[in-house]
């Protein structure tokens, strides 16, 4: 008897067309449909495939059926393992919330030696020491820090120019390290500085305490000095010499740089990236201006819109692909954060792309005067006179009072994208997040109308760009996968 007679035909083993949907979102995407689900899986379908799928007419024998099944868009009688897998991935995605506040920012001084027109912090001139944090306030801040249940604690020193109050940084680091002998947390320190005042004493201290340095580098000398004017006109020289000194003394991995995009930067993305490469960096964060502080007062924020920034970003990305093709490994940091959300179930913990918003539960800020803010952007807004996001004061309020305050609880419940108009149906929802401070600053509403939101326009543009590449360009998609 031949085999064909011994066995039934394959279709006898399959119940055709008896699938159910698993929860998904969709949107038209060029001439196709993009589908995403609760855990960030994505799939492109042609119009015909989409229609067949949503009308329950898709045949088991079609290749796209298995893709939809593997990526948890449908479930059939063959297996219900998708529910367990989706649950597990969802739980993994929200794991970061259980960790609670990790990043604690100490604004040790508002003083600064620069006069940047785009400054988002509203700095004070160098000699006004009443804008320095005191040791008493710092100790209250550390009491707060170690009440966080997080196993990993990052303390970041911000300004103004933080090194103008280096003695307080020294005090906080030594005190925190001493407390940590009992606490045994994974404790990390970062100094955000323009590097003007970095010297051997500071470097030696950073080396002893394994401190990371974060600085600002806006591009080549002419652009950097234009964006970040210093009275002595030597900002660029001080910055790049500082970067070299840190790399030499502490190691190349101990210093990172951030750029801010101004109108003058828009036509210079290649120069800016080349500048980063010339200083040994293997990545760049193409960061737009935020609508706070001097960026608003000097109208810098109004000089370009989200679309112009997106053009700048895409030109930069194309150049970065070119560099990678030519054997120079280089990546764009914002894309890397988003790719992690697209390609893995893990939450990269980026404060601006979280739901509920990362305010207070991911990062919290202690201002120089002891006021506690929900995020760095919140205190930037406060320096403009609007204390909407002030959560309390280290001088008057306990950890418990602040962290269980109505303000925080309502901020968290109102910033879940799952319940926000337009976000709830947005195909990109799982890659995005809430930024209540941005929307409050631009629309006086913490949720904001998304079709008028620069935050939304910028992020949707980046998601579309990255997913477009992942969906149709194997070579560049491989480069992107290497960034996760």
């Amino acid at each position, binding site marked *: 008897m031949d085999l064909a007679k011994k066995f039934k035909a394959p279709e006898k083993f399959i119940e055709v067309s008896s699938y159910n949907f698993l929860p*998904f979102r969709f949107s*038209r995407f060029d001439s196709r449909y993009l589908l995403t689900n609760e855990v960030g899986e994505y799939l492109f379908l042609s119009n015909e495939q989409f229609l067949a799928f949503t009308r329950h007419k898709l045949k088991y024998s079609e290749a796209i059926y298995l893709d939809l099944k593997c990526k948890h868009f449908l479930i059939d009688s063959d297996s*219900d393992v998708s*529910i367990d897998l989706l649950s597990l991935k*969802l739980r993994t995605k929200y794991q970061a919330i259980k960790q609670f506040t990790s990043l604690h920012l100490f604004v040790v001084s508002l003083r600064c030696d620069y006069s940047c027109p785009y400054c988002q912090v509203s700095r004070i001139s160098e000699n006004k020491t009443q804008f320095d944090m005191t040791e008493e306030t710092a100790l209250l801040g550390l009491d707060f820090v170690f009440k966080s249940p997080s196993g990993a604690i990052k303390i970041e020193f911000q300004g103004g120019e933080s090194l103008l109050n280096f003695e307080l940084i020294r005090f906080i680091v030594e005190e925190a390290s001493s407390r940590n002998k009992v606490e045994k947390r994974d404790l990390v320190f970062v100094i955000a500085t323009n590097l003007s005042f970095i010297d051997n004493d500071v470097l030696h201290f950073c080396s002893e305490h394994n401190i990371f340095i974060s600085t600002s580098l806006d591009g080549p000398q002419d652009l950097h000095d234009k964006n970040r004017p210093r009275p002595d006109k030597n900002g660029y020289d001080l910055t790049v010499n500082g970067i070299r000194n840190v790399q030499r003394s502490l190691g190349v991995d101990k210093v990172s740089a951030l750029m801010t995009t101004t109108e003058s930067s828009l036509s210079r993305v290649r120069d800016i990236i080349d500048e980063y490469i010339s200083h040994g960096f293997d990545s760049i964060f193409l960061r737009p201006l935020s609508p706070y502080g001097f960026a608003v007062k000097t109208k810098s924020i109004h000089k370009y819109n989200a679309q112009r920034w997106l053009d700048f970003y895409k030109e930069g990305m194309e150049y970065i692909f070119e560099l990678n093709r030519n054997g120079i490994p280089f990546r764009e940091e914002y894309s890397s954060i988003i790719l992690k959300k697209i390609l893995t179930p893990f939450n990269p913990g980026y404060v601006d792309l979280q739901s509920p918003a990362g305010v207070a539960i991911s990062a919290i800020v202690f201002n120089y005067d002891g006021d506690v803010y929900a995020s760095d952007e919140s205190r930037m807004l406060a320096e403009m006179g609007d204390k909407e996001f002030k959560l309390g004061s280290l001088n008057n309020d306990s950890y418990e009072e602040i962290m269980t305050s109505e303000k925080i609880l309502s901020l968290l419940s109102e910033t879940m994208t799952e319940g926000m108009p*337009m976000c709830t149906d947005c195909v990109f929802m799982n890659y995005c997040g809430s930024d209540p401070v941005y929307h409050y600053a631009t629309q006086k509403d913490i949720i904001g109308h998304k079709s008028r939101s620069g935050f939304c326009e910028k992020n949707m543009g980046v998601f579309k760009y990255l997913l477009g590449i992942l969906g149709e360009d194997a070579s560049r998609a491989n480069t992107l996968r290497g960034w996760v």
Partner: protein
Amino acid sequence: MVVDLNIFSLDVIKKVCYKSSFFSSLDIDPLNEQKVVVSFSFDEEFTEELQKRFFMDFNQDLVDEDLRGKVKEETEVIRNLILANAFSDTTLVDD
């Protein structure tokens, strides 16, 4: 624009209007029990060409939004099961 409530629910119409309100101010008025009228008023710089595109998108959005509602309805039970399974310590699926 007249929209038949037998085809699209008022919820769907409101969602699409909300989304579209950046380009136009909109009013929704009942015509009779079966139909509503959606009126649009555009800024002067919103050209005829843009208006044509707007109405095409508006109609497509009605269809998409209607489907979203159906998918949501069809997946509500399983979505709740996944959420409960993800955030509880029990093995609800096996039970």
